[in-house]
């Protein structure tokens, strides 16, 4: 089996309630897929299916990776183990000897910003962000080839977030690990992912699929802002998040619940960037700007032409 | 039961004048499920003391704890209570206000065995013998006799203590043991049980092998009887010599009745006491060694008996021989 995750026509229902319908997803080694979508649309369910925690009811899921690691939405640390032992848990399960596992756990803890003191504490004495960093360290310490992460950075401040983004990208460059991550921060998705899947709710399905051809480590900030803005101008995306559609993008058509729209292919990205939305919004807040609160979508520099660097359009 | 009824009626008529003076509200008799209690049950059943009390009640006691509760001073719950003589002495020495009025049971201890050929204590040398209750009277008697026979009870026998005669019986029947020291009516019930279908198919017959009373007489060179159990007076009876005298008469009569009519006695007792069977009681009445002897007349024998017990296990009689106040003596 090749090192890849392939999902075809996956459905899932809790009791009688259908939560996921017709999910298709491909994650080859070394790539990053970001899953975004409204709260309660089934992202975590999909991740748990990938992790093998839920039985596949319908459709196929082929996971060819050998060493997956999961970072859950909640830290899920063992309350009776110190942070150090929690981070080393996966290593212990692999049979790594105590000394080495301790050293590796501590190195990983340092790289997520946990100090010696925190390592000796029990999880309930850690702050929220420290707990989620411990959970991240526990997953990374395994040296996985597939990393499933559920909102890994949502409890972290901007400084740590940036640091951990770098850490993740370095890790990925070094070990070629595949990442499936859930996030609510579109810009984070654009910054880290090779493919962004936007889901809509009731039932959970993928309504938009964006490919980012430039490798994540070579994306500039400006391109990240612009791509995010572009993403937010997609009717399917705005509909999925219940945002008002930016006025000038309304004619893109095919409302909500639409079929998957391939985007961020060079052409469509260029086409979209031709419709500046920011100047107007800055002058007098338009519905679009009010509705896109994480905002950079509307803040892209309208005056600049799309450059050939980073994004290939 | 007609005979019993007639007899009872005759008794009560004969005794009628005595009761004219003061009649008690209630008279309470108490005793264990053993031969000493049969006459008490008969008194209660037949109304033999109707002339002295409105109601006569028999309350059984089953274990030392119940006995202690019954014996508490000042509560005056029981008037006459049947118990082993050493227990009476023990309670007396511990400050309970009671007096021994008579001894009626003169030994009901047997060595029961699966082996017909064993006849004396000495025959049981080297054998495992079940003994219900460690350091209780049967145990001490057994040890005394063994000593007297020139045997060391610890070395020459393998004594296996069990919790109760019932356990001993059960082990005998289940062929887990071959010999046991038992007391009436346990002996009779066990024999009955093993002779009756289906049990006898499994276990061979048991035999009354050695009569410990007999051994007592033989080894200690005295009469073949042990002053084992009797009646003590308590509470309102203590201050009422008339009542005691009346009770002594009734008890003697009832004892005689039981001895003369074992089957009727068995039926009567079994009716009151579910745990005993009519045949078992009848058998035990036939086998046991009863004689009504007022306490003051048995004093010498009792003191010898107590002396033997005291020598081995002072706690059995409360640490010392009871003084003369223990023995009830009718005032002439």
């Amino acid at each position: 089996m090749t090192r890849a995750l392939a999902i075809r026509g996956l459905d899932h229902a809790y009791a009688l309630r259908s939560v996921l319908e017709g999910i298709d997803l491909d994650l080859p080694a070394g790539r990053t897929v970001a899953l975004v979508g409204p709260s309660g649309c089934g992202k975590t369910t999909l991740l748990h299916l990938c992790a093998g925690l839920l039985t596949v009811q319908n459709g196929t899921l082929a996971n060819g990776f050998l060493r997956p690691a999961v970072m859950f939405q909640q830290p899920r640390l063992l309350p009776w183990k110190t942070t150090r032992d929690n981070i080393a848990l996966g290593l212990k399960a692999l049979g790594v000897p105590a000394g080495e596992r301790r050293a590796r756990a501590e190195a990983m803890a340092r790289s997520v910003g946990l100090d010696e003191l925190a390592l000796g504490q029990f999880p309930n004495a850690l702050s929220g962000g420290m707990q989620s960093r411990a959970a991240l360290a526990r997953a990374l310490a395994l040296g996985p080839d597939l990393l499933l992460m559920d909102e890994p950075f949502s409890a972290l401040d901007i400084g740590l977030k940036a640091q951990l983004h770098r850490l993740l990208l370095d890790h990925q460059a070094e070990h070629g690990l595949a990442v499936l991550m859930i996030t609510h921060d579109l810009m984070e998705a654009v910054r880290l992912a090779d493919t962004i899947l936007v889901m809509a709710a009731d039932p959970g399905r993928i309504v938009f699929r964006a490919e980012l051809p430039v490798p994540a480590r070579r994306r500039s900030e400006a391109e990240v802002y612009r791509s995010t803005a572009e993403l937010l101008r997609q009717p399917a995306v705005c509909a999925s998040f219940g945002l008002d559609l930016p006025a000038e993008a309304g004619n893109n058509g095919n409302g909500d619940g639409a079929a998957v729209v391939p985007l961020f292919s060079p052409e469509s990205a260029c086409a979209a960037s031709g419709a500046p939305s920011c100047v107007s919004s800055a002058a007098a807040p338009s519905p679009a700007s009010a509705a896109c609160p994480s905002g950079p979508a509307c803040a892209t520099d309208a005056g600049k032409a799309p450059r050939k660097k980073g994004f290939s359009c | 039961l007609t005979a019993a009824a007639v007899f009872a009626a005759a008794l009560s008529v004969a005794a009628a004048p005595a009761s004219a003076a003061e009649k008690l509200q209630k008279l309470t008799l108490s005793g264990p499920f053993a031969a000493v209690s049969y006459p008490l049950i008969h008194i209660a059943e037949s109304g033999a003391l109707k002339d002295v009390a409105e109601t006569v009640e028999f309350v059984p006691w089953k274990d030392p704890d119940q006995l202690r509760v019954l014996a508490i001073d000042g509560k005056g719950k029981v008037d006459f209570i049947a118990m082993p003589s050493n227990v009476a002495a023990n309670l007396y020495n511990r400050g309970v206000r009671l007096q021994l009025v008579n001894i009626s049971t003169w030994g009901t201890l047997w060595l029961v065995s699966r082996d017909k050929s064993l006849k004396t204590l000495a025959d049981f040398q080297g054998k495992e013998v079940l003994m219900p209750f460690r350091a209780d009277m049967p145990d001490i008697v057994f040890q005394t006799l063994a000593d007297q026979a020139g045997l060391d009870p610890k070395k020459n026998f393998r004594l296996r203590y069990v919790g109760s005669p019932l356990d001993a019986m059960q082990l005998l029947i289940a062929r887990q043991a071959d010999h046991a020291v038992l007391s009436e009516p346990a002996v009779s019930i066990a024999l009955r049980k093993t002779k009756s279908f289906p049990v006898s198919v499994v276990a061979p017959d048991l035999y009354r092998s050695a009569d410990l009373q007999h051994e007592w007489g033989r080894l200690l060179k005295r009469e073949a009887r042990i002053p084992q159990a009797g009646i003590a007076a308590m509470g309102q009876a203590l201050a009422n010599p008339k009542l005691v005298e009346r009770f002594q008469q009734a008890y003697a009569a009832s004892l005689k009745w039981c001895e003369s009519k074992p089957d009727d006695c068995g039926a009567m007792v079994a009716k009151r006491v579910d745990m005993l069977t009519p045949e078992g009681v009848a058998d035990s009445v036939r086998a046991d060694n009863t004689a009504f002897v007022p306490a003051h007349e048995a004093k010498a024998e009792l003191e010898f008996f107590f002396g033997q017990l005291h020598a081995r296990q002072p706690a059995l009689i409360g640490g010392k021989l009871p003084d003369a106040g223990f023995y009830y003596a009718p005032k002439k």
Partner: protein
Amino acid sequence: MTLLRAWLAGIPAYLWSGWGAVASLCLLLAAWEGASAVYGALVLPDPGTVFATLAGLVDSGAAWPELAVTARRAATGLLLAIAAGSTLGMLAGISLTASMMSRPLVTVLLGTPPIAWLVLAMLWFGASDGTPVFTVFIACFPVIFVGALQGTRTLDGQLKEMATVFRLPVRMKLFDLYLPHVVSYLFPAWITALGTSWKVVVMAELLSSADGVGAALAVSRSHLDTAATLAWIAAVVVTLLAVEYLLLEPVKRELEGWRRQEREGSAA
């Protein structure tokens, strides 16, 4: 080693907290004294007499051998019950089928009066230690089993998922995942079982043995020697208190240390 060191370091605070326990035991003694004044020495001798008798038994050397025999039996039965009950209970908690199958058996064990076993025990073990040990085992096993079963069933599903994902081997699942949680259910069960074991072994000896505290108790009981009876019972209870406070409680403190930090963090 670390366990031992932590244990030693915890002693002063532990002893201090023990004053509350001592105070309430003193209250109990006072109540006993009062009751004995009301009911008289035959029914309930006063604590002074009882402890004097106990001291006499200890001085004369009569107490130790009996206590040792009884302790050996109680401890053997209890340890067997703890081992079997904890293991089987946890296994039953993991597998729904095993739990369905075992529950009624446990109920049968729990509800059957000991006399039903006594005959069988005497058949199997005769007059050896076996009978009281077996009786203790039968009495304690279901208590521990039920606790372990319930503890295993109540482990947070999220942590179970985590363990699955991190592919914890069975050994680690047992010791790193289930046991630390189950321990909080096992502790009340162990405390109950510890008390039960002493009580039951004494009762079993009372009924069937030639030695041990129970047998001594039977003797003093048939001699109507209430002071000695209570002295033996006091010896049992004091030993039990010692075992609980010197052994079980420190272990508990150690194993539940992570909860304490939680407590200190919140002043609510």
